[in-house]
C-alpha cells in the first residue's frame, strides 16, 4: 500500500518536473517581449536596460534554475507587465472562472436533463428528434461562433443582454460572486449558456441513453407491475440510475470546461484566468504564461494522483500490478 502510494507520488513528481521544463523552455524560446514595452524612441542602450531588467540577458538554464528555486518556495515569479506575483494574479481571477464554469454546469443540467428524459421516453416523436438534432448541433458548433451570434442578436439587435464583462458582485457567506446580484446574474447568463452548450449536448445524450437502458431494466418493469406511479418511477428510480454516469462524466469534463472558458472569456471579456492567459500571450508576459501553465499542470497532476490513490484504497485489485486494470 505505502509502496504503491510512494510510487505514484514519485511518478507525479517526475511528471511535474518534465512538464515544468517543457513549459518553461517552450515558452521562453518564443518572440521577444522587449519590443512590446519599449517605445519607438527607445534606443539600443534603453533596449539593453530592459533586457537586463527582465532578466533576459542570463542564459536560459540559469533562468530555469532560478525559476525552480523560487517555485519550491511557492513563488512562480512576477508578471512582466503587472509587476505583481503571478500566482497572486491567478488566484485573483480564478473565482470568476470557477463561477462561470459552475453556472455553465448548472445550466447544462437544468436544461439537459429534462430534454434528455423527454427524448429518451419518446424516441420516435418529432420533438425528440428535434432535441437530438439540437444536441448534435450543440456538439458541433464552435463555441466562439455561438458566442458571437448571441452577442449580435441579444445585445446588439435586441438590447436585452449586456454584451461584455462581469456584473456587480456581492459577498454572501464569505464568498464573493455575481450569483448574488441581479446585475451579476444578468451578465453571467450569456457567457455561461455559451459555455454550457457542449456539456448540455453531452447531458442530453447521456440521459437519453440512460433512459433507454434503464426503462427496459427488470426492476423498472417490476416497479410498473407493482403499480407504482409513472411519475415516481421516473423521478426516483430512473433518475437515480441515470445520474451516476452523468455525474461521473461531468466531473471528468469539468477541467475541460475550465479550459474552454478561455474562448468564452475572451469573447465576453469575462475577467477570469482564461482571459488573463490570452492577454498574457498577446504581450508575451512569459512569467505569467508559465505560472498559469504550471498551476494547471499542478492542479491536474494532483487530481489524478488523488483519484489513483482513492481507487487503490477502495479497490485493492488495482495495486496488484501497479496500474488500474
Amino acid at each position, binding site marked *: 500500500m505505502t509502496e504503491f502510494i510512494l510510487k505514484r507520488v514519485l511518478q507525479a513528481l517526475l511528471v511535474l518536473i518534465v512538464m515544468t521544463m517543457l513549459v518553461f523552455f517552450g515558452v521562453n524560446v518564443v518572440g521577444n517581449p522587449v519590443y512590446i514595452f519599449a*517605445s519607438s524612441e527607445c534606443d539600443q542602450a534603453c533596449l539593453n536596460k530592459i533586457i537586463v531588467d527582465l532578466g533576459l540577458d542570463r542564459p536560459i538554464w540559469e533562468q530555469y534554475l532560478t525559476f525552480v528555486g523560487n517555485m519550491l518556495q511557492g513563488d512562480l515569479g512576477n508578471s512582466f507587465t*503587472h509587476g505583481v506575483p503571478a500566482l497572486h494574479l491567478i488566484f485573483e481571477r480564478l473565482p470568476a472562472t470557477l463561477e462561470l464554469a459552475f453556472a455553465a454546469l448548472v445550466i447544462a443540467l437544468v436544461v439537459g436533463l429534462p430534454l434528455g428524459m423527454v427524448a429518451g421516453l419518446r424516441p420516435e416523436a418529432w420533438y425528440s428528434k428535434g432535441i437530438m438534432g439540437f444536441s448534435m448541433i450543440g456538439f458541433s458548433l464552435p463555441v466562439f461562433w455561438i458566442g458571437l451570434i448571441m452577442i449580435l442578436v441579444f445585445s446588439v439587435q435586441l438590447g436585452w443582454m449586456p454584451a461584455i464583462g462581469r456584473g456587480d458582485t456581492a459577498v454572501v457567506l464569505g464568498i464573493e460572486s455575481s450569483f448574488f446580484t441581479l446585475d451579476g446574474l444578468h451578465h453571467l447568463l450569456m457567457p455561461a449558456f455559451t459555455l454550457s452548450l457542449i456539456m448540455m449536448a453531452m447531458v442530453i445524450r447521456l440521459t437519453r441513453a440512460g433512459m433507454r437502458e434503464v426503462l427496459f431494466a427488470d426492476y423498472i418493469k417490476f416497479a410498473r407491475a407493482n403499480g407504482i406511479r409513472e411519475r415516481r418511477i421516473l423521478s426516483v428510480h430512473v433518475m437515480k440510475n441515470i445520474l451516476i454516469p452523468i455525474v461521473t462524466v461531468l466531473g471528468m469534463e469539468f477541467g475541460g470546461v475550465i479550459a474552454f472558458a478561455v474562448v468564452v472569456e475572451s469573447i465576453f471579456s469575462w475577467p477570469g484566468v482564461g482571459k488573463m492567459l490570452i492577454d498574457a500571450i498577446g504581450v508575451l508576459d512569459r512569467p505569467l504564461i508559465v505560472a498559469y501553465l504550471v498551476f494547471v499542470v499542478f492542479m491536474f497532476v494532483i487530481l489524478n494522483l488523488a483519484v489513483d490513490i482513492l481507487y487503490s484504497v477502495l479497490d485493492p485489485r488495482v495495486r496488484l500490478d501497479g496500474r488500474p486494470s
Partner: protein
Amino acid sequence: MTVWKPGLFAAALAMAAPLAATAQEVLTIGVRSEASSLDPHWTQLSADLQVQEHIFEKLVALDSASQPIPGLAVSWEPLDETTWEFKLREGVKWHDGEDFTADDVVFSFDRLRAGISGAPASPAFQLEKGRKMWEKIDDYTVHITTDGPYPTVAEDLAMLPIVAEHVASGVTASVDFNSGQAAIGTGPFLFEEYSPGSSISVVKNPNWWGGDVHWDQVVFRPITQDASRLAALRNGDVDLIDYPPTIDLPQLREDPDFTVSTIAADRLIYMQPGYKHVEPFITDKDGNVMVPNPLRDWRVRKALSLAINREAIRDRIMGGASLPAKNIVPPGFFGYVDGLEADPYDPEGAQALLAEAGYGDGFNITIHGPNDRYINDARILEAVAQMWSRVGIITEVDAMPRNIFFSRLIRGDELSMPGFDVPEFSMAMTGWGTVAGEATYTVSGTLETYNAATGGGNGNFGRYSNAEVDARSVLAKRTIDPEARLAILQEAITIGMEDYAYIPIHFQVNNWAMKAGLEHQPRTNERTLAMEVKRVE
C-alpha cells in the same frame, strides 16, 4: 480578495458624495488594452499612460496636437546652451493635501535614474538623452543641465510623470500604486479602485488646480475584441470606446445615436525597404536571389510608391480614416514639410520606372509585417501586396504577431548581440510614432545612418544611409534656435523622402466612438482622457 482596497481619500470622497445629492455624472470608457500598472514610471504603454494621466501630471503637458504646454511647470527657458530653467506651479496640492514642490520633481527623476525594480520599460531613458542632470534652486525652481546643446528638453520632460516624495519613497514599485497606497498624484482625478481584468475607476478631484472637471467618476473597462467593444457601446454598457472597428466608422458617423471623433495621429505607417547588397526575400522569376538588390535603385522604390493606391486603402480598409502621406510627421507638428504630397496612384508610371531601371519583367518579393500592432495592419499589408503584384512585382505576405515581428525586424535574430544586429526583412511594414510632437528624433531615428554608439538610426531597420541626411540630422540635434532647427529638419526630410528612404503609406487617424450627447476633443497621441470629454445638449 478580488478587488483592491479603495484608496483612503477616494473612500472619504465617496462617503461625502451622497451629501451632494445631485445625480452622479459617470463616464464609462471601453478601452482596447488594459492598463498593466498604475505606477507611472512602470512602462511607456499607451494603455497605462492614459489611465495614469488622470491621476499623475508632468512638468510639461501636451495639448491635443502633442505640442508642449505648461503642466506642473508654468514656464521654461534656456539660460545658456546647456542649462534650462523650469518654474514650477505654486499652490498645487497632492491628493492627500500636501504641497507639491521641487523636492517632488527631484525625487521623481532620482527614482527613475536609480531604476524601477522589475519595471519592463520605464521612461527613464528620456533622462539619459543629453545626459540630463537636475538641481533644485528653490521650492519652485528646477534647473536641468545637458552635456551639450540640446533643444528638446521640454519635450522629453513631457514623458516623465511626477510622483509625491512623501508617499512614493520606499514603496514597492507597481504593487503599492495598484493598491492605491501610492497612487497619489496632483491630477484631476483621484484613484478609486483597480480590479484587474475588470475595471479601473477614478473619481473627481474637487481641488484640482486646472479647474472643474465634468465627471464625478470615470470607469475604464478593458474589452479586447474590437467587435465586442463596439457591441458594448451599442447596447449601452459603455459610453465611449477607443479604436472602434474602422469598418463600422461610416455607419457610426451616420447613426444619430452615436458620435465619432477623429484626429490625425502621430503614427506614420510605412514600408521599410532593406538596403543590404543581397536581400534574401527578393528573387527573380526563377526563384534565384537577386544581386544586386533591386531596392537599392531609387527608381524601383519610387515605382513601388507609385504603385500603391493610398486612397483605396483609406476608403476600403480604413473606413475613410487615414491620411495618405509622404511627410514623416503629421500636419501641425514641428518639422512638417508643406510641399511633400503623397504620391498619386500611377501604375503605368510605376511600370515605366521599373522598365527604365531594368526590371521590366518584375521580380518576386516577400513582405513582412505585424498583424496585431497597427490599425488593420495585416489588411494593409495584403492590399499593398495586391497592388505591387499588379505592376509585376509578385508579392507574398507574411504577417505575424508583434512580439515575433519586432524582434526579427530589429535584430534579425533574437540571440544576436546588441550593436551587431542584422535586420532580417527585405521589405517590412512598420510604424513610427512621433510621440514628442516634433521631428528631431523621427529624423534621427528613421533616416540617419545606424550607429549603436550615438543612438542614430535606432529605428532605421533597412539600414538606409545618406550622408546628406546624416549631416543635417546631427546638426539639428544640437541646434537650440527653433527656426534654424526647423529649416534643417525640413531639408533633411525632403532629401530623405525624395530619395524614398522608405515608402510612406499613411498617418493613422485616431477615432473614438461615443453615445450622442458627448463631445470629445480627440488627441493626436491616441490617449483617451476623460478631461477632454463633455456632455453637450
